């Protein structure tokens, strides 16, 4: 069966995120108040063929650890819908 796996990859919390800072500047210019911080990451959508949900998650984890995220600078979360 095919599972729709979403991998969220974000810059580590302790790291400066210049892209988020630039977007924050844009929001300020828009005049939107109350947004205190922005961080930009990515969402990677995988269609995974596996026997069950646990297997699909395991495969996505392997893909993420080996290629999709770099633990030196990023953390990730995996969700299956």
């Amino acid at each position, binding site marked *: 069966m095919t599972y729709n796996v979403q991998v969220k990859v974000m810059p580590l919390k302790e790291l400066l995120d*210049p892209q988020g800072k630039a977007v924050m500047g844009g929001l300020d210019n828009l005049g939107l108040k109350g947004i205190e911080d922005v961080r930009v990451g990515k969402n990677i959508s995988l269609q995974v063929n596996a026997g069950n949900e646990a297997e699909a998650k395991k495969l996505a984890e392997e893909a993420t650890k080996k290629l999709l995220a*770099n633990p030196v600078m990023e953390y990730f979360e995996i969700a299956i819908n």
Partner: protein
Amino acid sequence: MKFGVVVFPGSNCDRDMFDALSQDMNQEVIMLWHKDRDLSMFAKEDCIILPGGFSYGDYLRCGAIARFSPLMQSVIDFAHQGGKVFGVCNGFQILCESHLLPGALLRNSHQKFVCKNVFLKDTDNNIFKIPVAHGEGRFYADEKTLDDLEDGGQVIFRYCDEKGQVTDASNPNGAIRNIAGICNVNRNVFGMMPHPERATSEVLGNTDGRKILKDLLMSEELANHLA
């Protein structure tokens, strides 16, 4: 000795490197295609170079996809066997992604692409003027890794001012501890963000890059012969 320059889709400093080594420094250089695997024509004292550019369009992360090129598997083996490997700019990013060097290169802290001459200092306090051209050159590693790099003398270049002072103002990208280049523990894998291959010709008004290429990559005998 001879050099191999790897061409990835999106490399754009490969010909500069070829020209610097072959024309300006009179070395034998072989161009290598990322889809090949064969490095059997290279011996341990030879050097494989990963050039600057935007391999695979910098998709996902700079250097992340190039790491899985067929030829990179051979380059990683070559490095593990003690062969010399040198990465400049995108090549440095690929070496970090390949785990041949520790750390990572992050987006410049000021959010801008930077293209200008900067000053660098090596471990013997020689000062060089070398151009940088990158959007993601902010070296980062955790504190433990950084301390290990410093203790092992593996920080081979730092950004500095004209007089060799390591200052925040002379750091073009926000690199931690002003780090511009590092090597591995075994001192056969080198990576740096600045471009020595763009500074090897009198015609271009700067030959500081020659000394960097000589010091890093060539035996003392060959370097003396060239001097």
